[in-house]
């Protein structure tokens, strides 16, 4: 339950990350128009080009006041940036409601009132990175498992429902993919792509981790297709498609959710492991795995905050997904549920 709440929270953080921490106003009035520059964190295109044209140079507080004295802006809760080092002079000309300093660099960036989770050796705020990194954590889990589930369920369903030679062929396919060491597959696929983006990474993780889902779906389908209600539907004259989707899949879905939710955890782990090996989310994505990787590089520099916070983030997220998976497992297993005290 707590796990579920945490995951929902994670989603919220992912969705609102630019409003929580960023250097772009959530909303501002500039030369008489309203703009939402913070959307630029989701997609640079959504940040109005006027700010580039007017030579804001990515620094809003100072520029806004300089270029238009009438302007006003609503700022994110924390003024820090996940991509760059924030300098003290950025607030120049703005009534100094908040005392700013240059972000410290190298191993001087201990957690402080300005940088809650410290800074990276390059002076980028870890808290900002973590908050914006949630997006990737959430996406990696969901997109990759979405792909994996799609492939896994399709293949498992076909094999389990039609049996016969389709089953033989698909089962062999599952076996082949299972035998290929995941890391080889992932590394190979990553290098095949010219410019891997985080989306490619998710796709690749998805494409390589569907086997357990397929196996379970197949088993479920084999079991469920023998159920009397399937026979009853056939007796009513229902087509295969109808039976697969309305009768079997709907009932197979709950148990299949279990490996999926464990898979989400695994996908996050794979992403961070890949980052650890230097093949993770491509820059400048502030993924937790990348931060952890940085922390590992600097572990002897006593930059514990680089290991602790992202490590904790990964650990907690994985833990939550695992807990949800566990919960689902219990909920879908009638024997366990019966005994659930």
């Amino acid at each position, binding site marked *: 339950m707590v796990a579920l709440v945490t995951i929902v929270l994670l989603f919220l953080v992912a969705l609102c990350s630019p409003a929580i921490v960023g250097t772009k106003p959530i909303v501002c009035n500039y030369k008489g128009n309203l703009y939402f520059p913070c959307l630029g964190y989701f997609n640079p295109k959504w940040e109005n080009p006027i700010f580039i044209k007017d030579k804001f140079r990515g620094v809003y507080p100072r520029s806004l006041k300089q270029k238009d004295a009438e302007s006003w802006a609503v700022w994110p809760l924390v003024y820090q940036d996940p991509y760059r080092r924030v300098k003290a002079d950025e607030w120049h000309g703005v009534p100094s409601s908040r005392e700013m300093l240059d972000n410290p660099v190298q191993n001087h960036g201990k957690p402080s009132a300005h940088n809650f989770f410290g800074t990276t050796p390059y002076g980028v705020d870890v808290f900002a990175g973590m908050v914006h990194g949630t997006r990737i954590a959430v996406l990696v889990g969901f997109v990759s498992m979405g792909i994996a589930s799609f492939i896994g369920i399709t293949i498992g369903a076909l094999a389990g429902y039609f049996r016969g030679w389709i089953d033989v062929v698909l089962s062999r396919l599952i076996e082949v993919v299972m035998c290929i060491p995941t890391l080889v597959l992932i590394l190979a696929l990553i290098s095949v792509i010219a410019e891997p983006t985080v989306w490619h990474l998710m796709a690749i993780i998805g494409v390589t981790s569907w086997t357990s889902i397929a196996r379970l779906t197949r088993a479920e389908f084999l079991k469920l297709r023998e*159920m*009397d*209600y399937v026979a*009853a*539907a056939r007796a*009513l*004259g229902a*087509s295969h498609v109808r039976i697969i989707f309305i*009768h079997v899949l709907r009932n197979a879905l709950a148990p299949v959710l279990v490996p999926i939710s464990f898979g989400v955890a695994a996908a996050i782990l794979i992403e961070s492991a890949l980052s650890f090996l230097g093949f993770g989310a491509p820059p400048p994505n502030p993924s937790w795995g990348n931060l952890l990787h940085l922390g590992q590089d600097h572990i002897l520099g006593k930059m514990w905050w680089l290991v602790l916070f992202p490590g904790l983030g990964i650990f907690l997220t994985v833990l939550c997904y695992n807990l949800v998976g566990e919960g689902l497992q219990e909920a879908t297993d009638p024997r366990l549920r019966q005994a659930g005290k």
Partner: protein
Amino acid sequence: MTVQAPAPTPTAAAPATRPLLQVTNLKKHFPIRRGVFQRVVGHVRAVDDVSFHINPGETLGLVGESGCGKTTVGRTLLRLIEPTAGEIAFEGRDVRALSGGQLRQLRRDMQIVFQDPYGSLNPRMTIRAIVEEGLIIHGLGNRKERLEKVIDTLEDVGLDPTYINRYPHEFSGGQRQRICVARALALNPKFMVLDEPISALDVSIQSQIINLFTELRRKHNLTYLFISHDLSVVEYISDRVAVMYLGELVETGTSRELYHHAIHPYTKALLSSVPKMTPGKKPERIVLPGDVPSPSRPPPGCRFHPRCPLAIDICKVESPRETIVDGHMFRCHVMEQQLKSPASKK
């Protein structure tokens, strides 16, 4: 009593009207597959050469021990299982030759109710969706009409139509069985296979469901194939009864005939095995030795011979023919001889 040669068609015993369902030499052999290559290593002869007919408005009871092939017979009739051989004629149409749309049409006329009311309802569909499904598949009526039909049907089977948006798990076993019946009934079938529809129910509920069936039969002029191993229920509900043993029909007759003048030694033993409701009296029963053999390796000759108290040599080698005496069919060498020999006639 006259003894006839095995007749290819049971017209002699059947009434003048054409039977609703005529099954001839039905066979179903399940292949036993093994290993990764799925090689067929043998066959389960679940149904082996079964012939019978059911007249309109009639209820045929099908009894027999577990695994003797009753369910398989019931399901092959609807082509839920493809038969291996034999003919099934429903209202004169060859069921096996149907395909696609015709088969779907057939399924409007033939329906089935299963033994397990827990497993035969999709747990993720509402009662309404379940009952309505057949109508949707067959494109009958618009939304409103369908809803009316669903409500009608539910009332028919004695369920409160206000339950329409509930899920199956919110119902008791008896109620679920009613839902199953409603689902079958919604399509206005002519014929229903009832595959042990009461054996999973509580004793006090069984009679409710039995009453429901008799009532529906009267109201909708239904024809039933009633499969059960509860002999007293079968006797109560059926007009005629067929006894199966190891994939074969061993005896068929009207329920009066069969229960009072059973011919086949298996039927006799079966009837005597039923515990009697007469306490204090030591039952006189024929206890059959041994177990039912596996249908994948049925004994040669008469399949019943290893357990038969009457077995003679010929039983071990030759399969007995269908013998029909006054519309009462049986397969037994010993009884055939007995009934043929004039000495046995009284």
